[in-house]
C-alpha cells in the first residue's frame, strides 16, 4: 500500500505542476462562463445597423401598412428598417435594374418587389446582397405576409383583428410533476446545464484517459518502468497511476466547483451591474444530479482509465496509440450521439438498455437522470454493472499491462495480446 501511495503522490505532483494542467484548470471555467454569457451579452451588445430597403409596390396599397409594421426602432431611437418607396414605372424591369445598381452601390441594402397580383398569386421578391440573415428576412417576410392577408380578409369583408383573435395560438405551460409536487420548470436552462455536465464528464474522461496513456508510454519510452518494477508489482504501478490521475481530476473538479459556486453567487449582481437591461438568471439544478455526476464520473474514470493504461502498455508512441484508441473513442462517442434519441424518449426500452451498457452508462445514465429521473433500480443496476465491469477490466488490463510495459519494438497483434494474458 505504501508503494501505491508513493506512486500516487508522484503522479499527482508531476501532473498538477505542469503548465497544461494549471492553464486548463483556470481556463476551463472561463470558457464555460463565456459559452453561457456570450450569447446573452451579444444579443444586447451587438447593435444592428439601420437598413434602407427599397420597395416597389405595384399594388399601391401595401407600402403604408408595411411601413407601419416595420416601423419599430432600435435602442438609439432610429428605425431598424427604413423603407423607401419607388413608384412602379411602365418599365418595371428597368426600375429593378436600377435598384440592383443601387444595392451594389450601397445606397440601399435590399429591395422588395411586390407584384400587382400579390394577393391572388401570393408571390413577392426580395433582392439583397446577403440573404443569410434569417432574422431580417423573417421579419420582412412576416410583415408583408400579415399585410397581404389583412388585405385579403378585408376584401372578403372580414375583420383582420377579430380573425387574429380567433386564430390566436394556445400557450402551453410545462410543469414537471415530481414526488414533491408540481414544479414549474425553466426546461431550457436546466437542460442546458445538464447537457453541459454530461459534456464535461465526456471531455474529462477523454482528457484524464489520455494523461494516463501518455504517462504509461513515457515510462515505457524512457525505460524507467523496469526500475520501478524492481520495487513493486506491475499491478501496483498501474493502480497507483490510475489513482494518482484520479486525484488530479478530483483537484480540478474541486477548483471548478468553487468557480461554479462563486459564479452562482456573484454572477447575477455582476452581470446586471454592467448590463442593467440584461435578463440574466442562472438555472438551478437539483443537488442529486451533482451527486450522480460524481458517482458516474468516478465509475467512468476507472473503466476508461484502465483501458487507456492497457493501451499505453501495448504501444511505443502516442501515434501508435491513436489507432488502438479508435474503438475506445467510439465507445465514448456513441453515447454522445445517442443523446438526441434519449432526449426524445428517455424511458423507452431502447434508452433503458443503452444506458445500462457499462461502457455507455456514465454518459447516458447521467443524461437520463438529468432529463427525467429513472427508477432507482435502473440507476443502481447500471452502477452495479459498471462496478463489475471495472473489476473485470482491471483484472484483464492488469494482465496485459504487466507484459506490455516490458515489450519494446513492434506493436503486438490481438493474437499476441491474448497470449500475454495467458502468461504465468
Amino acid at each position, binding site marked *: 500500500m505504501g508503494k501505491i501511495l508513493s506512486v500516487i503522490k508522484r503522479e499527482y505532483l*508531476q501532473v498538477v505542476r505542469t503548465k497544461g494542467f494549471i492553464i486548463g484548470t483556470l481556463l476551463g471555467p472561463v470558457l464555460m462562463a463565456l459559452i453561457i454569457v456570450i450569447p446573452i451579452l451579444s444579443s444586447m451588445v451587438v447593435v444592428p445597423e439601420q437598413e434602407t430597403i427599397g420597395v416597389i409596390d405595384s399594388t399601391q396599397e401595401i407600402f403604408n401598412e408595411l411601413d407601419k409594421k416595420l416601423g419599430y426602432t432600435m435602442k438609439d431611437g432610429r428605425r431598424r428598417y427604413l423603407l423607401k418607396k419607388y413608384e412602379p414605372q411602365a418599365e418595371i424591369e428597368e426600375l429593378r435594374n436600377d435598384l440592383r445598381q443601387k444595392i451594389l452601390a450601397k445606397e440601399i441594402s435590399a429591395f422588395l418587389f411586390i407584384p400587382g397580383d400579390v394577393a391572388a398569386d401570393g408571390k413577392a421578391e426580395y433582392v439583397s446582397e446577403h440573404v443569410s440573415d434569417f432574422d431580417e428576412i423573417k421579419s420582412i417576410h412576416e410583415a408583408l405576409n400579415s399585410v397581404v392577408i389583412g388585405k385579403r380578409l378585408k376584401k372578403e369583408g372580414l375583420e383582420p383583428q377579430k380573425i387574429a383573435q380567433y386564430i390566436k395560438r394556445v400557450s402551453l405551460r410545462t410543469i414537471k410533476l415530481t414526488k414533491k409536487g408540481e414544479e414549474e420548470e425553466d426546461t431550457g436552462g436546466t437542460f442546458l446545464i445538464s447537457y453541459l455536465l454530461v459534456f464535461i464528464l465526456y471531455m474529462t474522461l477523454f482528457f484524464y484517459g489520455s494523461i494516463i496513456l501518455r504517462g504509461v508510454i513515457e*515510462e515505457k519510452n524512457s525505460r524507467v518502468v523496469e526500475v520501478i518494477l524492481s520495487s513493486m*508489482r506491475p499491478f501496483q504501478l498501474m493502480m497507483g497511476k490510475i489513482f494518482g490521475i484520479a486525484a488530479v481530476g478530483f483537484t480540478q473538479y474541486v477548483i471548478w466547483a468553487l468557480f461554479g459556486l462563486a459564479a452562482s453567487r456573484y454572477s447575477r449582481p455582476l452581470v446586471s451591474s454592467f448590463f442593467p437591461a440584461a435578463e440574466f438568471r442562472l438555472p438551478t439544478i437539483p443537488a442529486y444530479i451533482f451527486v450522480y455526476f460524481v458517482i458516474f464520473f468516478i465509475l467512468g474514470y476507472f473503466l476508461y482509465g484502465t483501458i487507456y493504461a492497457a493501451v499505453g502498455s501495448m504501444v511505443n508512441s502516442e501515434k501508435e496509440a491513436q489507432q488502438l484508441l479508435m474503438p475506445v473513442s467510439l465507445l465514448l462517442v456513441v453515447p454522445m450521439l445517442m443523446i438526441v434519441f434519449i432526449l426524445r424518449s428517455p424511458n423507452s426500452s431502447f434508452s433503458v438498455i443503452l444506458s445500462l451498457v457499462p461502457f455507455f452508462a456514465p454518459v447516458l445514465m447521467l443524461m437520463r437522470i438529468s432529463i427525467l429521473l429513472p427508477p432507482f433500480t435502473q440507476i443502481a443496476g447500471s452502477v452495479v454493472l459498471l462496478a463489475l465491469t471495472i473489476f473485470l477490466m482491471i483484472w484483464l488490463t492488469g494482465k496485459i499491462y504487466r507484459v506490455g510495459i516490458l515489450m519494446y519494438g513492434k506493436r503486438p497483434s490481438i493474437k499476441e495480446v491474448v497470449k500475454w494474458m495467458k502468461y504465468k
Partner: protein
Amino acid sequence: MNALEIENISKKFDSFYAVKNLSFQIPEGTVYGLLGPNGAGKTTTIRMVMNIIIPDEGNIKVLNQKMDEEMKGRVGYLPEDRGLYPKMKVGELLLFLAGIKGMKGEKAKQEIDFWLERFDLVDWRDKKVEELSRGMQQKLQFIATIVHQPELIILDEPFAGLDPVNTKLLKDIMLEMKEKGRTIIFSTHRMEQVEMISDNICLINRAEKVLEGNLSQIKKQYGKNTVLLDYEGQASFIKSFPEIEKIDDYGKFMEIKLKEKADPQHLLSELVGKIKINKYEIREPTLNAIFIDKVGERNGKDPISH
C-alpha cells in the same frame, strides 16, 4: 550462506526457451559474473530473480527467502535498459525511488546527500533529469540502484555504454560494496571486466548453463598451455606449426592455444629471429578465449548460423 540460490529454473516464450533448467548459487559477499553472448538468457534470468517475470518451473531463493515485494527493498537492480523519469528533478526522483524501496524520511535524504556528493552531482539536485548529460544520468542511475543500501545488488550489463571514467567509478563502487559484505551479481558479454572483479562466474549460452564455478579454478582446469604473444612483423607462418591447436590473431597481439603435450619453449625458439617479440607469456587462457571456445564450439555446430 548463499545470497542467491537458483534451482532448475526454466522460462519459455511460446515454443522458445529463454532459460532452460538453470541452476547456480551465489555465496554472500562475493561478486558473481553472469556471462553469455547476446540473447543467451541473462536478462531473462535476472528478471526472474527480480520477480518481474515468473519462471515456468524451478525455484529462486533470494537472501534465503522466496522473492516477494518486501524482499525487493533489500535488492538493488540496474536494468539493462536504463531509464529515469526525464521530467523529474534529480533529488525528488531519488527520494521517490528510495521511497518505493522502503527507505524514507531523513535517512533517505542523508543517503541521497552522501551519494550525490560522492558522484559530484550535488549542484544538479534541483535540475530535471533530462537536463543532465548522458554520463551524469548514468551516475544517477547507479545511485538509484544502491541508495537504499541493498544487500544484494544486481547489475544487468552495468558497463555497457560507459566512458572509461565512469567505468572505473562503477568498478570502484562495486568493490567497495563487496568489502561491506554486499553480494553483487552482474551480467555482461565483455570478458575483461569479469576477469578483473568476479569471484565466480556462470557462462550461459542458448538458454543453458555451459560453465560455472570459481574463476581461478576454471582457468586452472584449462591448464597453462596458452601463450600470449606481443609482436611486430609478419607472423602468419605460425599457423602452420603442428603443435598449435588454435590461434586468435589481433595483428600485434596473439593468443595461441597449444596442443596438450606441446612445449611452449619450442614454439618460442621457432619464433626467435623471424618476428620481433615484445612479450612472450605462458599462462592460463583468458576468459575471452574460454568464452569463445565454449560458445563458439556450440554455436559453430548450428547450420543456421553459417
